[in-house]
């Protein structure tokens, strides 16, 4: 079925972003930001309904949404809304403290909407070339946002980010070219839609395994760099910690998942062309390395936002592990983890931004008694941290459990054992860091003002989703996740 929503969805944030460039009033910008993000969420929900009713929908011959895409779409929509709502109060505070110049706000908001638009195109594109173009588009828009404050650290992080991820995903383009070349060879010529994932996947079992293997390695390295899989993650803690807080939430919560979406698309092609063992093995290797590499950095970290950055490396690794263990359970767990980590990490970054604003530092050793000066945000901090560490009744526990179960079922005992050991160490490290921050008596210089309403509202929304998915996965999301896992497992 064709659906016009597929091309309208990315066009809306793009148009909203362009309109924002004409607006100078802060309140007006915030209203546009929230309205635009709600429109995005509405459109993604509309696409989800169509997919649920009719199966995969297409548009213009290059866009396509199936159940896999719906998961990522809804995540982007939800996080866009949460971040927009939180930005209302956050931005007022930033402007008051002189961190953000009021005359540059419109550029900031316009870039955020451009960034959201490129993420939507990434997830909606059927054409693998457009997928790549949009992915590079996310780098360009978000690099400007990472360096938006214009201080030395921010610019350094932005430079590392744009140079490393651009060279990284140019590997992805090369892999795309090779896969496309193999497909064109197998199909005996070039035709309209020859570059579409759906048409390549349909002939995947006839593709030359040698060239697909090389292509998948290039794609894995390329999009893996963008996803922050170790050892290609060097830029991630810098970029995610130096970006303005709402942008950090989008980068860690949504963007790295979009890169994984690219890997998933090529994984399904490689699965049919050269058997599942090859791509499973590669995903497993990157996954376990990410979890192991992130652990020591999490333990010794004192910078709150860098801590969260390294946590993203760990969790992207867990998603790769789930995909690598494979099977229905592992894939379902990995997709559920995409949602759970996205929601939880956005929550954690929003709380972290609030805490950094109050203490005027990012050093966790100097932040004491957060629960005392901000009871609501402090509670949400503890909830977010326990969820990240994998404690029930929060959502990450469920998806990590599914990943472990799939690993045992697949007989991959060594990676499972290493993974469990690392999770225990990370739990101890995280509880230590956050306990230090939440309890005790706050420094006299810490700001004790009333808690701003809108950031709390946004965090509560995310926390509600986090608890819901931890206790009971509603029927509809469950069905989407199951049929998405079906598509990936084949």
């Amino acid at each position: 079925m064709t659906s016009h929503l597929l091309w309208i969805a990315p066009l809306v944030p793009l148009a909203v972003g362009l309109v924002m460039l004409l607006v100078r009033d802060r309140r007006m910008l915030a209203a546009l930001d929230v309205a635009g993000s709600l429109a995005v969420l509405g459109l993604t929900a509309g696409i989800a309904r169509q997919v649920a009713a009719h199966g995969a929908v297409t548009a213009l011959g290059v866009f396509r949404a199936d159940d896999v895409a719906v998961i990522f779409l809804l995540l982007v929509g939800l996080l866009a809304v949460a971040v927009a709502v939180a930005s209302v109060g956050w931005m007022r505070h930033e402007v008051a403290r002189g961190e953000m110049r009021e005359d540059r706000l419109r550029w900031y908001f316009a870039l955020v909407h451009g960034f959201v638009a490129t993420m939507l195109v990434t997830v909606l594109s059927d054409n693998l070339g457009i997928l790549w173009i949009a992915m590079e588009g996310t780098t360009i828009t978000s690099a400007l946002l990472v360096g938006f404050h214009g201080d030395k650290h921010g610019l350094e992080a932005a430079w590392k980010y744009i140079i490393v991820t651009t060279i990284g995903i140019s590997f992805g383009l090369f892999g795309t070219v090779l896969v496309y070349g193999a497909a064109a060879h197998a199909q005996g010529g070039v035709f309209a839609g020859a570059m579409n994932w759906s048409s390549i996947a349909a002939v995947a079992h006839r593709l030359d395994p040698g060239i697909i293997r090389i292509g998948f390695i290039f794609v894995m390295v390329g999009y893996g760099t963008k996803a922050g899989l170790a050892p290609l993650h060097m830029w991630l803690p810098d970029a995610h910690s130096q970006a303005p807080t709402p942008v950090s939430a989008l980068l860690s919560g949504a963007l790295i998942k979009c890169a994984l979406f690219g890997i998933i698309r090529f994984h399904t092609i490689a699965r049919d062309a050269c058997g599942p063992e090859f791509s499973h093995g590669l995903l497993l290797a990157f996954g376990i390395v990410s979890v192991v590499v992130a652990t020591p950095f999490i333990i010794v970290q004192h910078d709150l936002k860098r801590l969260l950055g390294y946590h993203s490396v760990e969790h992207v690794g867990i998603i790769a592990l789930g995909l690598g263990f494979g099977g229905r359970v592992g894939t379902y767990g990995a997709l559920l983890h995409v949602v759970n980590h996205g929601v939880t990490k956005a929550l954690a970054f929003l709380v972290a931004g609030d805490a950094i604003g109050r203490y005027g530092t990012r050093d966790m050793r100097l932040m004491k008694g957060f629960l005392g000066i901000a009871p609501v945000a402090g509670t949400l901090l503890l909830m977010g941290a326990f969820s990240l560490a994998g404690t029930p009744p929060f959502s990450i526990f469920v998806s990590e459990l599914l990943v472990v179960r799939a690993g045992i079922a697949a007989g991959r005992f060594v990676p499972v054992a290493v993974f469990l050991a690392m999770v225990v160490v990370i739990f101890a490290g995280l509880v230590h860091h956050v306990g230090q921050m939440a309890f005790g008596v706050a420094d006299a210089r810490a700001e004790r003002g009333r808690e701003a309403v809108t950031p709390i509202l946004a965090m509560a929304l995310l926390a509600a989703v986090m608890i819901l998915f931890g206790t009971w996965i509603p029927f509809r999301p469950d069905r989407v996740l199951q049929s998405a896992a079906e598509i990936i497992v084949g």
Partner: protein
Amino acid sequence: MFLSVDLATRLIDVLGALLLFTMLLILASGQLFRAIYAVAAQAAFLGVAGAVLAAATGNVDLWIIAAITIGAKAIFLPWLLLRVVRRVQISREIEAVIPMHVTLALAAAIVVLAFHLNASLGPVRQAITGNALPVGVTLILIGVLVMASRRKALVQMVGLFASENGIFFTAMAISQGMPLIIEIGVILDVVLGALVMGILVLRVRSSVDADIADLESLKG
């Protein structure tokens, strides 16, 4: 068809050799200007390769791609780099992080590896004209080597562009190139990315007077 397939294959191999030669010039150049001129020449050869393939296959899209490649990558991007160099008045010497003979040895290993990899491929090789695949792989990897072994923002950008030239070369030679609209989108991304990188370099210069690639305050 203005060219026979045989002649086109030979021409592509000659152009591939020229691309490799310019890549080595970039890798070995001790001066920023030389590296920029070398990458411009490389993009010009890439444009000629596009024209050869267009003449051989009769694919009109490839003529357009060849023209855009020369306009964007052989003229605009080098011009942008030279402009940034003049604006920031940086020292023009390139200091290597890794000694030059080690980088050259690594480059040689990359070339051997890429051609060996190509020889191991099956019938699908027919779909790619001449030696475009190993040349592409070599260019990409040596581009990364340039970026990793130099701590200068503009040299890293040159390495990046050279890497991308390798991708375009292989893409052109595979089954008559990618769809035109995709090629245009990719080149647009490259140009926009280069502009953002230029902005970042200039902003760091104006605020702290250092090379952005040399900042090392974020660690651990």
